[in-house]
């Protein structure tokens, strides 16, 4: 149902890895390691800086993919993948963008299941990839009907 969208991207959006956001995020997942929020600990660490937990990009703005219509409710998160070249550093500015990478269907017991894979990537200001990530979403036949498409 999203085959025509494959290859479509958002514009790149400038994001800052904000200190307060990282601290709050690490706390919300109960990851209280000082590398995420303690400045003195970080100075003496190999990173010389606080870093963000691997799933922190959930917080970032990846922009809007024009023409991509998702159901308002009933979207199922099937899979999530991250690949890092290095950890994200607190305080750094990065460019983020989203891109539709796959759309396919599978027959299920309760009708067709529609799969949609979107990449959410982050680059440094020189355009070097820091991380790539893929979210795989599942839309059931019932939810698709509710969307009227």
């Amino acid at each position, binding site marked *: 149902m999203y085959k025509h969208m494959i290859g479509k991207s958002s514009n790149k959006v400038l994001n800052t890895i904000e200190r307060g956001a990282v601290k709050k995020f690490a706390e919300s997942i109960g990851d209280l390691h000082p590398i995420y929020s303690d400045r003195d600990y970080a100075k003496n660490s190999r990173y010389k800086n606080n870093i963000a937990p691997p799933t922190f990009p*959930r917080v970032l703005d990846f922009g809007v993919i024009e023409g991509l219509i998702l159901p308002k409710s*009933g979207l199922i998160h099937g899979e999530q993948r991250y690949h890092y070249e290095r950890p994200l550093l607190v305080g750094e500015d990065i460019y983020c963008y989203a891109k539709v990478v796959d759309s396919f269907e599978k027959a299920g017991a309760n009708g067709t299941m529609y799969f949609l894979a979107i990449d959410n990537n982050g680059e440094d200001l020189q355009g070097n990839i820091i991380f790539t990530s893929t979210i795989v979403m599942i839309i059931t036949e019932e939810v698709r009907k509710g969307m009227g498409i």
Partner: protein
Amino acid sequence: MKTLSELQIAASLDPIQLEPVSRLDLIKYAGASGDYNPIHTIDEAASEAGLSGIIAHGMWTMGNLSKLFSPFLEEGFVQDYTIRFARMVYLNDVITLKANLVEKAGEVFTFKVAAENQDGKVVISGVIKFKLY
């Protein structure tokens, strides 16, 4: 503390058992992540969606799971993290986080990772590739 690089194949990291999932946990995650889908925080929204109660954000569980590796960040970092969401996590579920070393290829250690509920059922599972410096 043990270093990660000393681990042998089939060794496990010390598992972590979380406190029973509370509504406040999920409200905090909603606020921190910006994911305000009400099926994670509001009973009526969950029941309208056909659920027996509010469910944890899949990403909350995935976020929790990677903290098994936080003590080893001086040695390396999480290079790849892949998760499949298998079951819903409900209020008061007691989640245990596990990681088991399955492969060592040069600087990259591959772990099978999973979060299980109080019935021993896997709620999320996947792979973490930890790259040593």
